[in-house]
């Protein structure tokens, strides 16, 4: 009977050993402190000592940014090695929740709103006073500044408004609308010509949420830049705000003049394909530059104009996008290496141009030349020269996206489909006041 017991023990031991080895081993050079946090063990005693940086890249698309940066680092700072982790931006919050418990990467690449969110939690390093910030467009730096602390390096940006098909506008002799009345007239002209005025894809509820904030920027935050803070303190509400009601009505106008039967059934690529084929005159919401339209048709000629408002003085919306953030708790050697990487990102104009040519986003680094085809560039420069651009993060940093704007978008979708009234949709936003900012 003894041999049976021995056999049982041996089998148990081998199964357990297999599972332990199968789960992976420790990385070389890493140690774990008593709180369970993973701390990068720095062996750098001088500048040339090798340092490995962990970078979490939450990019909306596979940019190739990692390879370009790796090449530039190999040339300029060969002692710096990078371990990249690439995820979709939608997964950043989940990852951050995990890494906050287990140990943040050294550099996190997200959006400007992420820098504000996580900066306020005290987990991001303050870049204020760093010399490389002088190479960053001030508007971009403002987007990531909270109470004088700069929580990120704004790398690129997008412009938001209504994208329009230049050919369709020219063929139908329609001028760019600036007021609601002019927009109504343009809509009617297109309908008479058998063209759907707006291309939309409301199955992607985020597009409704974007529209809501973009209309709010024109009618709400343009009049009261602190509306979001007042909302939280109870001074204003969605239900009692004629401007927010108008913003919702504007979305309804777009819904009434789009492919209603399809908008909740087709996603963005299918909608863009129909837009490019001339089935619609305008696309809402629209982000420029856009690699999606370019991928579908390299020769598609489009422009960008601001969402009209009541007074005809609507501004084009600007949003700092890709932002590099630093872990507050890295050690000295890692901090030095991060500064070198950030210096590279702001001084190597050729590298920045190369990255922006792939992502097709406007660089926030000064004096960077890009060569990607952008039919909307002239429009954007026109509004920029006339100082008719406003930072949409004024609103986004007061009313957070996750748990507030995205949920409000679903309530708007219910209203658009006739399931609830506009008052109920506005009240749903008021009922979520506690989730409007964390």
């Amino acid at each position: 009977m003894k041999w049976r017991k021995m056999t049982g023990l041996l089998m148990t031991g081998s199964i357990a050993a297999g599972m332990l080895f199968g789960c992976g081993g420790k990385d070389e050079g890493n140690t774990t402190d008593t709180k369970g946090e993973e701390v990068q063990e720095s062996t750098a005693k001088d500048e040339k000592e090798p340092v490995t940086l962990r970078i979490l890249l939450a990019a909306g698309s596979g940019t190739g940014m990692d390879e370009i940066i790796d090449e530039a680092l190999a040339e300029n700072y060969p002692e710096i090695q990078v371990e990249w982790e690439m995820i979709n931006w939608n997964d950043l919050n989940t990852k951050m929740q995990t890494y906050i418990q287990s140990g943040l990467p050294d550099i996190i690449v997200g959006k400007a709103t992420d820098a504000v969110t996580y900066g306020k939690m005290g987990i991001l390093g303050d870049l204020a006073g760093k010399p490389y910030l002088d190479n960053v467009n001030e508007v971009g730096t403002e987007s990531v500044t909270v109470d004088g602390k700069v929580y990120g390096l704004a790398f690129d940006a997008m412009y938001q408004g209504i994208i329009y098909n230049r050919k369709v506008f020219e063929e139908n002799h329609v001028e760019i609308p600036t007021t609601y009345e002019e927009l109504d007239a343009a809509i009617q002209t297109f309908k008479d010509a058998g063209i759907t005025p707006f291309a939309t894809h409301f199955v992607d509820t985020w597009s409704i949420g974007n529209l809501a904030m973009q209309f709010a920027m024109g009618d709400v935050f343009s009049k009261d830049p602190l509306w979001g803070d007042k909302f939280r303190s109870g001074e204003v509400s969605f239900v009692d705000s004629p401007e927010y009601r108008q913003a919702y009505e504007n979305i309804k106008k777009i819904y009434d003049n789009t492919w209603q039967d399809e908008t909740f059934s087709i996603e963005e690529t299918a909608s863009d394909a129909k837009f490019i084929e001339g089935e619609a005159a305008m696309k809402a919401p629209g982000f420029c530059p856009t690699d999606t339209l370019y991928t579908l048709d390299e020769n598609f000629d489009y422009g960008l104009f601001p969402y009209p408002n009541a007074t005809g003085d609507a501004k084009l919306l600007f949003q700092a996008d890709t932002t590099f953030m630093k872990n507050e708790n890295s050690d000295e050697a890692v901090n030095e290496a991060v500064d070198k990487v950030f210096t590279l990102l702001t001084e190597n104009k050729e590298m920045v141009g190369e990255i922006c040519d792939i992502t097709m986003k406007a660089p926030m680094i000064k004096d960077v030349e890009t060569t990607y085809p952008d039919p909307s560039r002239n429009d954007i420069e026109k509004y920029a020269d006339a100082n008719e651009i406003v930072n949409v993060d004024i609103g986004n940093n007061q009313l957070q996206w996750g748990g507030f704007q995205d949920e409000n978008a679903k309530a708007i979708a219910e209203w658009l489909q006739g399931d609830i009234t506009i008052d109920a949709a506005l009240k749903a936003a008021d009922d979520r006041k506690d989730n409007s900012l964390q």
Partner: protein
Amino acid sequence: MRKRTLNQRMAGQYAILVLPGLILFTLGMMIPLCMAFSYSFTSWNGLDATKKWVGLDNYIKLFQDKYVRDAWLFTIKFTVLNTVIQNIAALLLALLLDSTIKAKSLFRTIIFIPCLISAIIAGFVWLRIYGSVLPALNEILGTDINFMLFGSKETVLTGLVIANNWQWVGYWMLIYLAGLQSVPHELLEAAKVDGANAVQKFLKITLPMLAPAITICVVGITTGSLKVYDLLVSSTKGGPGYASTSIIMQIYNTAIAGRQYGYGSAMSITLIAVLLLIAVIQLKWLKKREVQM
């Protein structure tokens, strides 16, 4: 020294062999479950170092939350429809493939293939089918059928049930097929000799013998449907509005996107309790009806 009995020695050996699995189960399931239970009594946002104790507030809020109620309603409707349709369809297909039709292997393969793709891909595929492929048929045939099932609150559940059944009916069909093929032929022949027709043979012999397979399929489809998430993420995203938001999606949106980890944990604990209850009730009721040879 008191000698251990054979049963005691066997029990000890069984315990040793079960130990690794038990350790993994404890680490991977029980500990996170206990942690989620403790978080459910806090207002933690998933990021802060501190977790503020709020007692039963999350559970009280849960029962007053319209969105949670609607998510449960959708999930229950989805589950009931799936359980009924998938079981009947799988059984009928199994009966067909257990008959004397030609090319059985080909049909079995075709029906089973959708099980091999992930639910995320299935959702994306059906979004395209409803949004672009089937509407193109209207243009070809000159008809005006509304194929945009994901486009409205009234039809989105139907669209999702079709997509889900298309993906999983093959899997359950194989289980019923195995059950059918294990029914002793002597019983069926004896019944035939006694004058039983096809329907009587099916109801009196085949169906009772299939009870174990029915148990597996009903419990499997029910618990799987209650946990639907991937299909929704890639197809309707829970919309239009909240029309196709399942309870798992509501938990994710609350805990992760909405950074209300404590409240989301309370929803999760409730879901686990419901899943356990349903599984226990189903197993007890269905086990009674199983025929043991």
